[in-house]
């Protein structure tokens, strides 16, 4: 399943790495990409293991707020 989060708090391109590697190290996440310019966070994950709330919490742990977006 693909979930799209949006954060408008990304303030330097290097924060992308932090969020990405934090998400990618979680079990149940196949692939996470963070686009700095648009602030879009795309996550391929198994909804059984990782819920939308888990994703939001992981992004928050990296120091940024995000919301789930329909597209």
């Amino acid at each position: 399943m693909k979930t799209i989060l949006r954060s408008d708090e990304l303030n330097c391109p290097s924060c992308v790495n932090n969020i990405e590697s934090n998400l990618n190290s979680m079990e149940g996440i196949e692939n996470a990409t963070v686009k700095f310019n648009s602030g879009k966070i795309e996550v391929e994950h198994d909804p059984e293991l990782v819920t939308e709330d888990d994703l939001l919490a992981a992004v928050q742990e990296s120091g940024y707020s995000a919301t789930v977006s329909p597209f």
Partner: protein
Amino acid sequence: MISFNQFISLFKNPTSRKKILLAVSGMSITVGWFFIGVMGDTFAGDMLMILATVVAGYEIIQKAWLGLKNRQTNIELLVSIAAIGGLSIGIYWESAAVTFLFLLGGWLETRTLQNTRKTLKNLVELVPKTAKVVRGEKTETIPARQVAKDMLVEVKPGGRIPVDGEVESGESSVDESAITGESIPTDKKPGSQVYAGTINQNGRIFVRAGRAGADTTLAKIIERVEEAQDAKAPTQRFIERFARWYTPGIVGLSVISFIFTQNIELAITLLVIGCPGALVISTPISVITGIGRAAKEGILIKGGEYLENAGKISALAFDKTGTLTQGKPRVTEVFSLQPEKVVAGHEEAEPERITEHKVLYWAGIAESGSEHPLAKAILEEARSRQEIPNADTFESHTGFGVSAGYMENKVLVGNRSFMEEWNIRVDKEALQQVEALSEKGRTVVLVAKNGELIGGLGLFDTIRADAPSAIKRLREIGIEELIILTGDTDSTAQSIAGEVGINNVHSRMLPEEKYNVIEKLKADGHRVAMVGDGINDALALTAADIGIAMGAAGTDVAIESADIALMTDDLGKIPEALRLSKLTLRNIHQNVVIALITVAALLVGVFAGEVHMAGGMLIHELSVLLVILNGMRLKWMA
């Protein structure tokens, strides 16, 4: 007072936590200075500075640690080392200032960046979340993205249209600025296409749903704009390569200088200025703002690379006359072949005088039953001037003309051979008129009434009203070479070129020949853009550095394939697109220069002993903010 639990939840939220940390550390620094400067209590002052460092450094160290856990060294790590190093050698105020400024800078940058990203966020929020679907006698509200094809959706005046579709019933005007960038509302009646996210203004309409959710034109536009913003421009890739070496390089320099000078303060100051902040954000900020602004004006640019290319365009080719013309013929000339035969002063007494008005009148009657595009143009022009009755009898002679009868009169409208076929004499004067108009690229039809030629009409696919000004504008912004590549005849092409103000015309062109012309321009050192519909002339369009598609609203192919897609048919958007690209390119260059000068100046300053930790961080953060603010200028720059 807020309760402890409230405080904890505020602290858990990254946004409010930043504010708390900033406020506390800022206050500690202020009070610390008060103790040191006014009270002379250095110990208390130093303690407060340490407190400020720890508070402001909390997040920084956390992020540095997270990075380390993921085997990454980041900027936060450098700042953490510098701050801890500063505390260990007793420069408490400098450590406090470094962490506080880093946090404050980050917060300010986020705020300004949010402002930049807002353009797109607003677009996303344009689409209503729900739709009112008509089910038999009543309506039901369902999530907009669940509207299936062919469902009937009710849109009240003032409401936003939730899906793409066709008006089934009702009339209204719709503000389509979200899609087209055009602020003047468009009139909609049954059969008209409407788009999700546009505003229904004054009438209730029922829309037969076409596409919903992520398939709508607006969603496609947003997706396209985001992809464009995230696509890295060549300058950005170059900068990122540079930045990848820059940070480790500075760390190395810091270690080496410590080994040689044994100066810890110099070493950690180097770490502070090792953040390539302004450099890495210099290009993205301009690209985000430039592409966002263009999107708002109905111009979709595919990405930073295309933006940079478009900014360098020096030649522009129109792939057909159709891009410069209305796309439908209009009556441009009416001539009478029976000028006034009356004695001066007796005009009123001569009822059958054939004026140009009368020529058009009879031609209009004859064409009233025809569906031919030329007939429609004649009828439209005739009706705009006078009341035109319908013919009593009508016969169409495909490819030649029409014959019609009205109140005992027999009217013929058609080309020269049609007239000769009906034994109408085409005299020398008539032939002269026909030739003169043909030379100007007109299609000429003759009108005969009761066996005698009375006049004729010149028809032409007229140029768009905004074409000459758009061409002039293109010259003004420095597009030196403007050419028309067309399959049309010489006279038509020349005539259109003359009217819009283009000298370089290639007519009767085959697709391969168009391709060759583009290649030749490139060989001459030009960066070439081409305006076309993206399908017929794929070959030449791919050869061009930038392909521009016009009137792309509603056609996904154009939105997805063109390098620059203009949502409307407004020719003025072409110079605007190229101008915005040039502005953005210049903005990127300014930002890169600002960033590089700052880095160089800081390095020199540190080794000259003029710049210390706090000052270095201040200059660094200021340069980041300067670059962001410069990029944001693109939003409103005229």
